[in-house]
């Protein structure tokens, strides 16, 4: 009898250790408050960077620290530290209401990690472990920073080797989510999901330069965790639509440091072999939001001048609680071995709670920090929809940067009502985009 108890105890201990590796039963770490000298009102400049460096290391993800040092010292930008603003919502009111309304209905299959019985909103408004945080934050389902029911976004990708400008391309990016829509009509679950299990479609259309103008990429992502993405592209040199492999989404887009799986930090498909774990909850720098409509608030969009500041984008940072967690790919054929993700940890009930992943650091299969990316500046419209103005994709191994400078139709009153909700035929099919391209 005693032996049986010992065996049961050992078995239980192994079980707990084993599952804690997957993060399923890992508890959320307590908040580590920042108590150093950096306070709102301080401006980080070239002159005081070294002085505050030990503190900046606590407040910035490692790759962001490298970029900001570069921007401050080489680009000559200054970074004002501003008050943590509780004025602007982190999600739309419809999304927050759906999250709280359906609280307690969703669950996670412990074997496959599949999300079950998700009714809408963030499935776990009060996450208890990394897996719940994963499903809350996952950008294909969460509605933050562009990941709204629909969005349309224009940007220039400016490529830099360190601070030296190399080249650029411009795009129009449009996306739609088909499951549990509460922000924009049509609401609910749309036919591509109900018939084919498609939860997301995203299109990219390149508008400059001449040699790639008209290149179109269309991505379909499925609810099934085992079904690979469907990818189509229109290649102007061939004048033909070609089907691409799902693996093409892990190749850099037109020489930039962005792979489509890194859009919105993490658009990679969640697969059963991935495991996740919490690392910490800490007060860290978070990009500040501006608000309004661009037509009514001309200062809403930061004024980036490449000639003056090179790769340095004008940023304002505030200090907020942040979850730090990581996802291991456990797949040697994937481009990365793991992602370390930084998520807004302000509770959803509070403003600006959102579960938004604002920064990600990705490690290669050899375990080296490789690519990182995240938001530099964001703007929220009066309806609570927000989107980015500045975004960075960085390659730590090469000190190469792709700086995205743009705006969304979410920021423009005129375009918001003109383009949103998207016209499926025009925005999310290659035939429709071909009409717009030419």
């Amino acid at each position, binding site marked *: 009898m005693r032996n049986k108890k010992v065996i049961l105890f050992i078995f239980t201990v192994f079980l707990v250790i084993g599952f804690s590796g997957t993060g399923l039963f890992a508890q959320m770490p307590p908040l580590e408050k920042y108590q150093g000298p950096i306070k709102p009102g301080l401006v980080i400049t070239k002159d005081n960077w070294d002085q505050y460096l030990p503190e900046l290391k606590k407040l910035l993800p490692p790759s962001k620290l490298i970029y900001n040092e570069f921007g401050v010292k080489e680009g000559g930008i200054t970074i004002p530290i501003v008050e943590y603003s509780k004025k602007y919502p982190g999600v739309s009111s419809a999304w927050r209401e759906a999250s709280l309304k359906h609280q307690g209905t969703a669950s996670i299959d412990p074997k496959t990690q599949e999300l079950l019985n998700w009714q809408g909103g963030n499935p776990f408004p009060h996450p208890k472990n990394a897996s719940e945080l994963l499903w809350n934050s996952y950008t294909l389902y969460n509605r933050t920073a562009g990941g709204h029911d629909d969005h349309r976004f224009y940007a220039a990708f400016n*490529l830099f080797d360190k601070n030296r*400008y*190399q*080249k*650029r391309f411009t795009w129009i990016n449009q996306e739609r989510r088909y499951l549990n829509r509460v922000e924009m009509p049509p609401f609910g679950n749309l*036919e*591509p999901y109900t018939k084919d299990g498609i939860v997301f479609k995203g299109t990219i259309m390149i*508008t*400059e*330069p*001449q*040699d790639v*103008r008209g290149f179109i990429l269309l991505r379909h992502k499925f609810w099934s965790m085992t079904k*690979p*993405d*469907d*990818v*189509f592209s229109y290649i*102007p*040199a*061939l*004048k*033909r639509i*070609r*089907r*691409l*492999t*799902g*693996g*093409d989404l*892990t*190749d*850099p887009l*037109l*020489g*930039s*440091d962005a792979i489509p799986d890194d859009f919105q930090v993490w658009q990679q498909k969640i697969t059963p072999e991935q495991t996740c774990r919490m690392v910490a909850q800490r007060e860290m720098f978070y990009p500040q939001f501006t608000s309004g409509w661009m037509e009514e608030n001309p200062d809403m969009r930061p004024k980036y001048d*490449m000639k003056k500041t090179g790769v340095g984008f004008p940023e304002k940072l505030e200090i907020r609680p942040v979850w730090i967690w990581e996802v291991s790919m456990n797949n040697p*054929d994937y*481009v990365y071995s793991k992602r370390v993700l930084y998520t807004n940890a302000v509770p959803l009930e509070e403003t600006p709670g959102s579960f938004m992943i604002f920064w990600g650091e990705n490690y*290669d*299969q050899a375990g080296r920090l490789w690519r990182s990316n995240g938001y530099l500046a964001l703007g929220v419209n009066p309806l609570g929809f927000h989107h980015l103005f500045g975004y960075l994709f960085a390659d730590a191994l*090469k000190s*190469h940067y792709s700086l995205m400078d743009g705006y969304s139709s979410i920021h423009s009153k005129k375009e918001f009502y003109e383009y949103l909700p998207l016209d*499926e*035929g025009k925005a*999310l*099919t*290659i*035939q*429709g985009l071909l*009409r717009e391209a*030419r």
Partner: protein
Amino acid sequence: MKKKLKLILIFLLGGVAIFSQAAPTYGRFSFLDNKLWVDGYLQNQSSFRLGGAGLVSFENTLRIDADYKFSPNLSFYGSWRSLYDHVWDIRDGGNYWDQYEGSGDTLDEENKLREMYGVLVLNKLTLKLGLQQIVWGESDGVRLMDIINPLDMRRQFNTRDWSEIRRPLTAVRAIYDIDPVRNWFVEWVWTPDFKKDLLDLGDPVKAPNSNGPWSIPLPTLTFTPWGAPVIPVIQEHKKTRYSFDSSSYGARMGIEVGGWFMTLNYFHGFNHNPSTEFHGDTALWMGPGGPTPIPDPGGRPPDLIMLNLIQRYYSMNIVGFTFNKSLGNLFILRGEFAMYPDEPVGSLNQAKHSDMVTRRARLHSMVGFDAKAWMRWLNPEQMISFSGQFFNFWTFDHEWGLVEGPYNQKLNQSTNFVSLKVNTDYRNARISPDCLVVYDITNSGWYMKPRVTFKYGDHWRPEIGALIFQGHSLRLPFNVMNHKDEFYLQIKYLF
């Protein structure tokens, strides 16, 4: 010669320098309140033929593209290309160049609209009217369903990007999106415009030095058993460029079902390379004083046999099926099948086919794949892309004597090709190597095009590459290009 070269280079570099200063970062030119957008490129391509031949092209090209959006539902697009090949100015004669000296009259210059059409969108219907390229099918490097526009193969044969060498046709194209979510559409095409493939065959009146660097050799002269030459006299049965009789039409429907994207195609058109009909021969006797024919003097065989040949463009019907399907995360399967129920083919069986042309049902098939693979030792930045294709051309009701092409090469019941393309990018896609190999299994000929494109900065796109052909007999498509191996340097400036 050197003076001319200097002038050309100064002109080009000067122009480019002005553009560089005007636009240090790339931006399309916009006019008329952002309704008209203009861009394009300036390009020089110099080709050097191996084997001591030296420079065989020094092409300067200007291309201008313009988009005019009249309204969200009505737009116009135009593309103009001017090309001047200075090689005829630079190379004034010389031992090797003598053979090409006369071809400059037809090949040194081109000023043409590449496309010009309007697009009208009426709800689910899109109408495209005007000069355009229409591309169907799934295959690369060998044409199966992509047969609507003919090709201009007078410069570097068919190795250039086909969008650069398709001959645009004035056409009406209507696309009706039945269900765009499922990629379900129907497309109709009608063109009253007829153009043929352009191959450089030289000018028989100016022979022998009217053949350009990429000319196809004429069939070798044959002789009767008693030694009299047999001379083909070819008349081309020309088609009117714009007429109802010359018009071609077709339709296709595409749909995606269960992850399979498929199209069904039908096209009625004409072969872009004429079939040669035999219309008897004429025996000629020469007088003692010269080449003037005289009546049959009796008692001796003719001094010359003239073959009376007519080149005719036959109508054809094509029924096609294409598909593609993603299998797993790194593999695409694609295929294309084009059935020609009545394709004209040559025949040496004169007893059966007096004009030496007959029709046969032929199935042109391709099955291919696109795959990606990590080879981190070769490229740690991104995956390597592989694209392979297998082609089969099957002739139904095959019989002895079926031939194809200008050299009457034997038409096997089954003809096979394979192709492989490998490409990747380095240094943030600033260095992009790729290599295409096409092997003609049946005729043991192959062609390879390795190239590296450099994409540094917003404007400059230099490219170096080579064209290598191998084969040992007078056969199309690749064998006849043997000894035309060359490498090229292309410098492109985007604006």
